[in-house]
């Protein structure tokens, strides 16, 4: 009798120890990203066509430069030499102009080695994370290392799911209309896989709802001066504001318009988390909308999410209706100017 009790006690102790090991959170990780601000030439409709629907692309007004323009973006590199760009996985090609997807579990630290490859002073500042390294602008050609810590107060709140979205952005003058934004996914402590992604979600997508007014971008003079982006040699002086102001606006999803964002794929029945965000150009009010499926947002069932300026949101979908569907902005002038993309639900 006594032996049996002893055995039970020993087994219980062992089980407790085992459990402690199993549920002990993984040691806090330091996640390092090499990110440069680069000046790129961008085209929101690389196919030259409206891949979304039967209607043709709206003709650009006469004082529009065209579909190509210069843009500042964040891009990831393999190491501190900043010689080789970190290849974006094929299933992330849809991220377009959006900066590298960073991840952290609560307790982790993100280290960003930053290089400014542009001709303008810019920086990197996270929303929601604790940053060291200051907000000073980094001179063209210079570098800076930032450490962003991820305490409990940067992670999901009681009514959030297992992960939430933050963004990082540049603080320099007139950068709201640049492409200098990127996503950070923070996962609840104990809920992350080794790469930082939440372990109760099968698939994640990040979509930036964005309006670029190229005339307000720091690269505007460059876009005007470059025959590759200004093939008709428009002169700013011959089209004073507000004509130019109104006619070089590009609404986009991750930089793409008129269905040109690479197709997103998911399977029926998967737990899909969509992270959507806006930035802060003049009219960055958007209404991300999904066809064919519904989402849960803060516990309520919707298929249109109203977003304010510079607002991130995470919504959950379990797709159940196979087919090709639209994701788009429900603001009518945005939809008319091609703020739409497609996703496919496979059986």
């Amino acid at each position: 009798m006594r032996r049996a009790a002893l055995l039970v006690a020993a087994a219980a102790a062992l089980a407790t120890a085992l459990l402690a090991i199993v549920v002990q959170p993984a040691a806090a990780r330091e996640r390092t990203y090499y990110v440069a601000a680069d000046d790129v030439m961008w085209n929101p409709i690389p196919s030259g066509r409206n891949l979304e629907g039967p209607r043709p692309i709206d003709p650009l007004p006469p004082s529009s430069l065209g579909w190509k323009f210069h843009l500042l973006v964040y891009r990831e590199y393999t190491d501190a030499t900043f010689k080789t760009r970190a290849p974006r996985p094929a299933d992330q090609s849809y991220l377009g102009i959006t900066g590298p997807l960073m991840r952290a579990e609560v307790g982790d630290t993100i280290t960003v080695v930053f290089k400014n490859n542009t001709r303008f002073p810019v920086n990197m500042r996270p929303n929601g994370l604790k940053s060291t390294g200051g907000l000073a602008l980094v001179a063209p050609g210079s570098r800076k290392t930032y450490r962003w810590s991820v305490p409990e107060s940067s992670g999901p709140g009681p009514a959030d799911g297992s992960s939430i979205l933050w963004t990082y952005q540049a603080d320099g003058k007139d950068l709201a209309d640049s492409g200098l934004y990127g996503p950070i996914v923070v996962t609840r402590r104990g809920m992350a896989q080794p790469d930082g992604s939440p372990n109760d979600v099968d698939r994640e997508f990040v979509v930036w709802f964005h309006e670029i007014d190229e005339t307000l971008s720091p690269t505007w003079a460059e876009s005007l001066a470059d025959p590759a982006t200004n093939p008709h040699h428009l002169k700013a002086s011959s089209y004073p504001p507000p004509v130019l102001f109104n006619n070089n606006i590009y609404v986009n999803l991750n930089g793409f318009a008129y269905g040109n964002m690479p197709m997103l794929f998911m399977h029926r029945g998967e737990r899909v988390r969509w992270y959507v965000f806006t930035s802060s150009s003049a009219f960055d009010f958007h209404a991300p909308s999904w066809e064919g499926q519904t989402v849960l947002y803060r516990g309520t069932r919707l298929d249109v999410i109203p977003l304010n300026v510079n607002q991130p949101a995470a919504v959950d979908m379990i797709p159940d209706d196979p087919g090709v569907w639209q994701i788009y902005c429900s603001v009518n002038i945005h939809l008319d100017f091609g703020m739409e993309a497609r996703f496919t639900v496979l059986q």
Partner: protein
Amino acid sequence: MKSVLVSSLCIACVAVFLVTLVRPAEAAVRTYYIAADEMVWNYAPSGRDLIDGGALQPLGPSQLGWSYRKALYREYTDATFKHLKSRPPDEAYLGLLGPVLRAEVGDTIVVHFENDTPLALSMHPHGLLYAKSSEGAPYRDGTSTNGKLSGAVAPGAAYTYVWKVPERAGPGPMDGSSVVWMYHSHTNETEDVDTGPIGPIVVTAKGMARPDGSPKDVDAEVFTLFAEYVETQSRLFNASLADPKVNPRHITMKSPALDESNSIVSINGYSFGNMPMIDLKRGEHVRWYVLATMSEFDFHAPDWHGETVMSDGNRTNVIQLGPMDMKAVDMWPDNPGTWLFNCDINVHRMAGMTARYTVTP
């Protein structure tokens, strides 16, 4: 031993009885006959500002008037589409909204649609589950003619839409016993919405519905659509221009400030308090479904004077609405009187986005 047998039998009996009790009602198929009809719509039928009792604001420089030709969804009694289903007087405030479609989770909605306008139109629901042949939206989705047919029903033609209502079309964990969706024409989505055909769908949680589909823990439901209609973007604007009854001033496409003059803010298609009164009773549990359309200035701040509402568990009397927003808030009116219900954005309020409701003791 015998007692064990007896008690297990009893337990089995009780279990069977319980299963019978909690078994959800049979899934229903709810059938509607809806036509899109071309009609003249008057945003201010009294010809006055009923909020302050004075005259309407002067017409804009190129405003046709307060009436326009619009395409609206209307409910008929059967497949002959000969007899309009009459709307009871206490639902007159619904105005240009199409019929309220209802379902309990598990049901199926079947809409027999007839397009009696000169425009190709469709019916596209938010939130519900549909095959491509019932989506009502034409775009490059890899389907051939079937999907396209549902997305653009030709003038004079008919089409049957089948929409299923699974769990994911019903209330989420933080919602009340019912949620609201919209249906609207999606042949050319943005222009169609300015043209007019739009209506509400209520989905009630499984086990929470009365036979008619309405939530049984709610005494009264109110539907309001906050909309800025840019009539120049309507696919019937040319018809409005050509109709001397709605265009007595002979405005033309070349008239100045055409867009600004013909942008009208409204609630259910009524401006300046012209919406028929919403009548509520003190102490009732009232659910307000608040909707918005999709123009670039369809950001609204519905404000209830005299009462408060619960919105997502928070007490307020002003909520935020964005384009195509669909919200449900709950009110327990306790303050008898006639109260203002309006959009708090100053330019919208001044332009007539105002209505009234009455709470009787």
